[in-house]
């Protein structure tokens, strides 16, 4: 089947179909507001870095190009983080203070910076995006990024309902709350079920 530039949004969704960028989604997307902020950060870092990276000369050695992509992403992370903090200081603080049960540490502190070494930038850019013409690459990049945002928000929404009985802080009448779904293991299980649903809706060849 021929690939379409917009396939990245649903059919070839980066998270649900390709299993990329799992860590931030599993740990940080336990509520919808956090998922929205994570999506904003991911979009800014990925789109800007991959776009800038497309101008690096192809005659550079592969290893040097990859190093340049990662360094660019680390630089782009700085204004992105400030933008996220400006966008909503309270959600930004909540994201940084995401707790892992049984630990005293603040897990969320590291997950925003980790977006700067996501597979879109260090792997998928060379294998997929830069093999296309600029215009097509941009459409494809935006659709893949939108696909990530969709998966993140779905995870955030479902886990917030199951764990806290609310959507964006508004209480929903839930008969039973299972707070474990806010923990990483809850994230893995919800992600597994969402991937299975995605398979049912968009079956792969041979399924």
């Amino acid at each position, binding site marked *: 089947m021929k690939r379409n530039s917009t396939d990245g949004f649903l059919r070839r969704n980066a998270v649900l179909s390709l*299993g*990329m*960028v*799992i*860590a931030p989604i*599993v*740990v940080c997307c336990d509520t919808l507001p956090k998922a929205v902020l994570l999506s904003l950060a991911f979009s800014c870092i990925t789109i800007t870095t991959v776009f800038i990276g497309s101008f690096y000369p192809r005659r550079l050695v592969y*290893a040097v190009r*990859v*190093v340049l992509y*990662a*360094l660019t*992403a*680390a*630089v782009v*992370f*700085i204004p992105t*983080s*400030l933008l996220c903090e400006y966008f909503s200081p309270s959600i930004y603080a909540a994201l940084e203070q995401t707790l*892992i*049960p*049984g*630990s*005293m*540490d*603040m*897990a969320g*502190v*590291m997950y925003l*910076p*980790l977006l*700067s*070494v*996501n*597979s879109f930038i*260090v*792997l998928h850019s060379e294998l997929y995006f830069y093999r296309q013409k600029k215009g097509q690459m941009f459409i494809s990049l935006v659709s893949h990024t939108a696909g990530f945002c969709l998966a993140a928000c779905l995870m955030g929404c479902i886990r917030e309902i199951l764990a806290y009985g609310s959507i964006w802080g508004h209480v929903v009448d839930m008969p039973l709350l299972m707070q*474990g779904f806010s*923990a*990483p*293991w*809850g*994230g*893995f*299980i919800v*992600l*597994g*079920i969402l*991937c*299975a*649903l995605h*398979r*049912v809706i968009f*079956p792969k060849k041979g*399924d």
Partner: protein
Amino acid sequence: MWLISAMISLLTTNLIFVRALGTSTMMAAAKNRSNLAVLAVLMAVISTLACLVSGGLLSLLHLDVMLVHPWSLGLPLLYTAVISLLYVLVLLVLYTAFRKRFGVLKKYVHLSAFNCAVMGTLYLMAEPAFLQEGETLAAVHYDPLGAMWFGLQQGMGFLLAALMLSAVRKRLYDDEVPAAFRGFPAVMVYIGLLSMAIFAIR
């Protein structure tokens, strides 16, 4: 008894089961066992050296101010620079030592250097300083052996998790598993259940 305690310790501080770091990399590595061994060894080497170098830079060059907001926004740049340096060094060493197999090995180096697990390990190493920000920054001591041991431990944790996945991989991709869950979704649920059990131990 010592071995059991070490295993429990590796599991309860495991990057994948506790923090989901490097899950995508592990999924790629677990496709066959030789991939897995090479990738896990390279990851252990890179995370060990990265902890040693970045710990040294933070402490000896007095860059520990970067552990406090807003300077901490520059940490990814520092860590990426360290990882990039090691990435190039490891490539050079492999090119010199295994020139015939270099074409195969270089893709593993790429996969094992730039991923959430290595970067996450560096963040975890500096984590106590994040918690004590302001008051106890002066008390951040650099212990090269401790830093190396921490990096090695995380690499070994990755190997253990990948072994646990590769042991059941065939079953999770078996025809008996419903088509919708076969493969990646089943792996996610499996990791979720293991993670739940490990959280219970914690």
